[in-house]
């Protein structure tokens, strides 16, 4: 077993533990490379099936190609796709791109609030109906008690302190100063009513590992990650008003791996193109304590 095999097996083990422990389990899918690797790992863990819904929080400011790719994979892999959104804020144009609020508040409103209320079932969930081929309001409003999230420890400071199974209290808050112990491969699968557990199968993966795995497994990824001849590509995907492409001529996974191993990104942080991180004093701790991914 090489390093990638080790990482893969550990992640699959965690996914299976989560599936055994939580009746109401879902996986957050951001359409990005990390959560797509996680989706692939789920298909491996459950032998081709994904036995829980995928939840996508749609800020409406995602690059259109991301949404097309989301729906295409949903159809092709027969996924149980659920979409949540802060409809009210969008209707009232209470967003950063509308000039109404700052970046961090916008993340809070369109992502954290939408996530919190979609997980709890307070706001409508739209589920993809494979027969009618469109999204319809989901009758299921039960709160999700286990939420699988594709964060990695190498992304930023507060994520380096995460557990594989990390509890969130009733208000979705993360008590970072008093996290439960987690020994060997025994995880926190017991939780009080009203609380939920975030599950992080990718904690030990680095950005390079993710690309090495995408390359090895030929996992389909959205084309925004690759240079289409203009000398730029996205290294990390988010909302278009707050995410910038990087100058790079990497056209495929092999190019990206080479660039990360020996090229100019060896020592440049992945989220350097994400504006909200800088507004939080160089990290996402404040946002993440409140329930941000």
């Amino acid at each position, binding site marked *: 077993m090489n390093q990638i095999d080790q990482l893969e097996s550990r992640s699959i083990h965690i996914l299976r533990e989560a599936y055994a422990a939580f009746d109401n389990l879902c996986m957050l899918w951001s359409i990005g490379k990390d959560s797509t690797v996680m989706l692939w790992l789920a298909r491996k863990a459950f032998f081709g*099936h994904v036995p829980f819904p995928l939840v996508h929080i749609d800020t409406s400011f995602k690059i259109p190609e991301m949404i097309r790719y989301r729906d295409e994979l949903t159809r092709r892999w027969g996924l149980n796709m659920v979409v949540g959104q802060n409809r009210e804020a969008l209707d009232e144009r209470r967003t950063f791109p509308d000039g109404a609020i700052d970046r961090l508040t916008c993340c809070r409103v369109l992502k954290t609030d939408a996530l919190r209320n979609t997980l709890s079932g307070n706001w409508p969930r739209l589920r993809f109906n494979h027969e009618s081929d469109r999204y319809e309001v989901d009758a299921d409003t039960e709160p999700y008690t286990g939420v699988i999230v594709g964060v990695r*420890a190498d992304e930023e400071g507060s994520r380096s302190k995460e557990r594989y199974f990390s509890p969130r209290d009733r208000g979705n808050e993360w008590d970072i*100063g008093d996290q439960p112990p987690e020994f060997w491969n*025994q995880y926190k699968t017991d939780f009080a009513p009203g609380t939920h557990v975030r599950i992080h199968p990718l904690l030990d993966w680095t950005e390079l590992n993710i690309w090495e795995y995408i390359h090895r497994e030929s996992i389909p990824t959205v084309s925004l990650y690759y240079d289409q001849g203009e000398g730029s590509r996205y290294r990390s995907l988010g909302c278009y008003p707050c995410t910038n492409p990087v100058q790079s001529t990497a056209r495929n996974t092999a190019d990206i791996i080479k660039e990360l191993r020996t090229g100019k990104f060896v020592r440049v942080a992945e989220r350097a193109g994400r504006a909200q991180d800088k507004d939080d004093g160089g990290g996402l701790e404040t946002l993440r304590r409140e329930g941000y991914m």
Partner: protein
Amino acid sequence: MQDKLINIVIVGHVDHGKSTVIGRLLADTNSLPEGKLEQVKKTCERNAKPFEYAFLLDALKDEQSQGITIDAARVFFRTTKRHYLILDAPGHIEFLKNMVTGASHAECALLVIDAAEGVQENSRRHGTMLSLLGIKQVAVLVNKMDLVDYSRTVFDSIVEEFQAFLSQLDVEPVAWIPVSGMQGDNIASSTNDNIASNNGDCVAACGSPWYEGPTVLEALDRFKAAPPLDDKPFRMPVQDVYKFTRAADDRRIVAGTVESGRLRPGDEVIFYPSGKRSHVKRIEVFNAESPAGAVCGQATGFTLTEQIYVKRGELAARAGEKPAPLVSSRFAVSLFWLGRKPLATGRDYTLKLGAARVPVRLAEVRKVIDASDLSDTGKSAIERHDVAECVLQTQRAIALDLADDFPGTGRFVLVDDYEIAGGGIVREALADQQSELRRRVFIRDSKWVGSDLHPIERSRRYNQRATLVLITGEVASGRKDVARLLERSLFEEGKFVYYLGIGSIRYGVDADILEGRSDEPDEDRLEHIRRMAEVANILLHAGLILIITARDITQNELDIMRTVLGDEIIESVWVGERKTTDLAPTLHLDNVSDTAEGAGRIIDMLQRKGIVFKPW
């Protein structure tokens, strides 16, 4: 570069400079993201704080403002030799649970001691924890050598003192290194390298030219990755048995992660504690050819040739490999306790080992040890941060191994009130009341002469699942009447059913013990129960629904029957308002107006559980 990841934890007393050493290592090996060092320096300037390398790791706002590490950070690091995941653990006693969390994921450790302060309480406590967690490869860093003028005498005396302590724990460090995290001495480059690069000049901080051993960076590369346990007997805790029928997939896949050994198609596997056996048909995998086998560390899954009922929590082993897993409900352990409330006898906890999960109680405290000096505290209560040797009693038997033989299946955690509150390793499986019975049943099953007819064939023909309905209650509770009517009703519906009265066994099968009556009536009764269960076993193999009545059945007696017959084949019914034993029955018939209602409610239960089907 070896394409393997190795996990290292850095431990030691609070303020002895763990985060500084790691921060320095990252900075001096150019491993930090561009601008990170400058950014942290600028933040320090803005807050009028002197820069510390520790700030590179102490990412949380509370950590930076208090100047201590609260939770273990994961740091990725690579040398020319291999990849590392370094877990920077906190040293403050308050955060011991975070230290153990980090250390439990590591294969090797760096233990830091402050040269000026010397060996402190948590230096020793962390040493004890490493030993309990099974981490054998340790390098000791004597840090802040700049504060003691790089004195060799100071270094030697710390080495001597701490070596004496570690030897009691059977920990033999691979290196003792004098370092200065602040000055960068012997971290990524040695004093002597630094002198050489200054054309032989001994510059400001002269360092420790007397030291000729490895730097921290070199010591890391000298750690050996834990040898794979491929050559040990096969062990795989069953995480689940998957069947995605709704997605038109009829495979029944036993899934789990291999803790040791290897498995190939055709191998005979035995599941413990049930003792069920089958053969591996195929190693299942998504999106690839079925592999030739599964190896240690792999998350895998396989289908079986003979369909048997196995469930999460069992331990799969390969037939014929020695040692086989142990099965017991009573075992001696070494454990550490981190719960706020003491670990106490008479309180229910949950034990998690492998994929098994079972209620457990503390049965006996043998010794409570002070982890900071290994002395016997003489206490009988196990309080927060204590290490203890004790005996645990689980509610039912589980499969396990001794930690010395199989680390992965020989360790456990204890859950108290939703929280993991302690963990430990199994030292010895002790005999419990049913050890002898389990041994006999195991032999019986291995010698059992199977029929060519599969149980599923009988089940389909009879429209029923073979089940023992055990009807109990007080004397004169009317249980026999209920049993007879139940037999009649099921028979009328075309079921294959038999009512076995206890007297029918007593004067035939039990004739020998009836004659030689022992003075221990209880012992007689348990032997009656065992024989009754063995008779039932044969009739259940024949596919019958078997009804047995016996008065005042206790939980222990039901457990004996379960050991003989298996958990899932028995349904127990208590007849009568007053329950006079500790039995937890499947169905309690109270407030029943007449026999017909009683029998009717049992039939409802059998239908609901899918034991009888068609024509209902």
